[in-house]
């Protein structure tokens, strides 16, 4: 039996093939459907989640390996259930999404970026998000939202 730690909660997984990609365990077993299936080969980034803070393509990352680490999904991005992460708030404020299918993956890649670089340049953003496709073409708004969120985070910190 595997124990998977997702968003600070431990889940006992019975009867799960250890080779199963993390994506399908999150979606089918844990009903955490924020991470999306887009390609199954790590090309589109819609399935991006964090493992120990590092973005991974959960469609190509086995649950057995993930079980040894802390997994964060978009459902666990905010500190509390009724609150929003600064990135989520920026995504809403700037009305980033069109269809929205890729945005959980975009958010998770960005969360990892901001943890390393609180004030990223356009080039930093491009490099960190080049693995996340947006078929609707919301890249410009994603970039703008990241800058807005970075600024908001700095302001919050200064005020704290």
């Amino acid at each position, binding site marked *: 039996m595997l124990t998977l730690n997702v968003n600070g909660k431990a889940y006992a997984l019975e009867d799960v093939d250890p080779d199963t990609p993390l994506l399908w365990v999150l979606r089918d077993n844990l009903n955490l459907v*924020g991470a*999306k299936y887009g390609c*199954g080969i790590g090309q589109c980034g819609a399935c991006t989640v964090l493992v120990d803070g590092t973005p991974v393509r959960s469609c190509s990352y086995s649950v057995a390996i993930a079980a040894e680490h802390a997994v964060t999904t978009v459902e666990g991005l905010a500190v509390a259930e009724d609150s*929003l992460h600064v990135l989520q708030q920026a995504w809403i404020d700037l009305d980033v999404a069109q269809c929205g299918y890729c945005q959980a993956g975009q958010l998770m890649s960005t969360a990892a970026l901001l943890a390393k670089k609180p004030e990223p340049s356009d080039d930093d953003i491009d490099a960190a998000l080049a693995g996340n496709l947006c078929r*609707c*073409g919301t*890249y410009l708004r994603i970039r703008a939202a990241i800058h807005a969120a970075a600024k908001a985070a700095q302001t919050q910190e200064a005020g704290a």
Partner: protein
Amino acid sequence: MNRHLSYHSDNFLAEHEAAATGGASGVVDVRKLGRRRFLQLTGVAGGGLMLGVSVACGERSSATAANVGEFAPNAYLRISESGIVICAPNPEVGQGVKTALPMIVAEELDAAWTDVRVEQSAIDAALYARQVAGGSRSIPAEWDVLRQAGAAARSMLVSAAAARWGVAEAQCSTADSTVHHTASGRSLRYVELANDAARLRVPDAKRVALKSRADYTLLGRRISGVDNRSLVTGQPLFGIDQVQPGMRYAVYQKCPATGGSVVSANLDAVKKLPGVLDAFVLKGNGNVGELMPGVAIVARSTWAALQAKQQLQVQWDETGAAKDSWDATIAQANAAMRSGGGDVIADRGQVDAAFAAAPVTREAHYRYAFASHAQLEPQNCTAWFRDGSIELWAPTQTPQRGLASVAATLGIAPDKVTVHQTRAGGGFGRRLTNDSMCEAAAIAQRVDAPVKLQWTREDDMNHDFFRAGGFHELKGAVDAAGKLSAWQQHFVTFARDGALVSGGGMSDQIFPSPMLANYRLTQTSLAWDTPCGAWRAPGSNVYSFVVQSFLHEMAVAAKRDHLEFLLEVFGEPRWFEEGNLWSVHTGRAAAVIKLAAQRAGWGQPMPQGRALGLAFYFSHAGHIAEVADVSVSSDKKIKVHRVTVVADVGPIVNLSMAENQCQGSVVDGLSTMLAQKITIENGRIEQQNFDQYALLRMPHTPQVDVHFIASDFPPTGLGEPALPPLAPAVCNAIYSASGHRIRTLPIAEEGFSV
């Protein structure tokens, strides 16, 4: 679903039809009634309370639908003590209608947007005439109906308040979900008036006063999408996210060449695989838009189903299957173009004489490849078949048609089919066809549980309804005055069983035809079996590349400035067909072209290897000009720095999404023209996933400046029309920067890349 209406509609309507006409009447089949007629009937006949019970919007149980004290004068809104609900009737596929359509109701209702909760409507052809996401038609088709729905409700709330206060309605005003009586300083919130308003007679929607544009307080503003919070917190909005109790997971394998049938499959071996519950063959009904032959695998999890699919071995009978070859087709098409001819679609004026007299003529061949929709959420559908009825949760652009297709596939009556529309992870035309719904339905009929059918990305790319490729032979003439004097175009396209493929027929209404006195269009079709379908701005997305590039070629041949040459083709401001929004208005066209040129700095000196390219296109009632600022290196690397978009689609409903659609259309257009190409050999699609079918990524995204000429014409849609001008604008810039004329899409075919 409004069960009350569906179960009792016949009696209800028969009664009120009788009341309305003042005499006896037969039973009215509610499903045959248009929405307007239905509302007229009920509006004349019913008291508000009765209507509140019967046409309330949203997906609710009959128990709550019968709530007394709920004000629901039409199918688009309901107000009760618990708040204001506005219904979004059309599918949300990323074009923003789940927010924009309710905004129109809220504007006329004078509801504060923060007070409004939006619900997705039930699928009901009796209540909603056109529940479609397609053709950029949602805004223009719903504009009047939604304004009238909001205005009628507002007038009833005013009546209720005036009666409560014993004052004249004319002394009352509304704002922020409240009726005010300024003289006495009294106010009542809509939620406090719902009970009273529900007892009033519904006015004739066409007679209620509508706001003038100057009085809008909501429309034209930037409003964040109503699903945004759910989206960024990972809530289950999409088809793929649906879960039902005891749900099973299915995959479906069809013949890689369209039309192949199953001879045999290793079903026994597959059934023994871990997590597999069942495997069986479906014969299909021969309709490629419904159910084609294949093998279904039902499992306990998506992963078990996907793993089992890898082990599945099927022997296909390909006697009747597609044998298409893209390479062979190119040779055939080139031969057809060399031989000239084709069926004459249009032949106006004196084309041959104009060419003979012209001092300058040019000839060119253009070509573009097949393309896939590649919407990011692969096709899926959840279906539950119980007691002869079926319920489906589907990401579809055409839920009403999907309902009919499922009924046809299963051979059951349409009233045994319930469709719940989910948000869709992109559409772009792919989800106009409901093959995945029919497959899920046919599988569910064999499974004693709800079942979610999941296509893989490979399934999605193999079994798309592709944007058809095409070939164009063009000839143009410029007269002694430097004006475009004749145009001849031979289009080589595709037909299946003698019928032109979807998105593969040209009419003589396509610009610049309506502006030219001497014009000839001929068409040749090659046999083709692989399915083709509508792909964002069907036809326009490729015809624009051809005609707007060749117009630039003619401007160059005439040694004229492209902007001046293009404006001259339009001539004096006039509507090509007076009053028809779906026809070119040359004044609107010239206005967007001029403003785009001005905002992009047309005519200013540019560095070596960098230039501006201009293109205009009219589609889906939208007049849109784009200017691309592009650098080209000696090794054919391009960088698109900036694209300026100027659009006239009338007044803007939601400025935020309107701008987003234009930016997205530019990215989509660029993405597609750069490297996207579907090739087919022996009926098989050669590209299987995003490693072989590249989508544009963030580092190559240009800056996109969007400007709207918010003219006073009625508003029209923006899901599509900003896409067609992009490819020719970029190709014209590449020519001006490098001298290389691109005549093939994707441009990777000519050695260009980003």
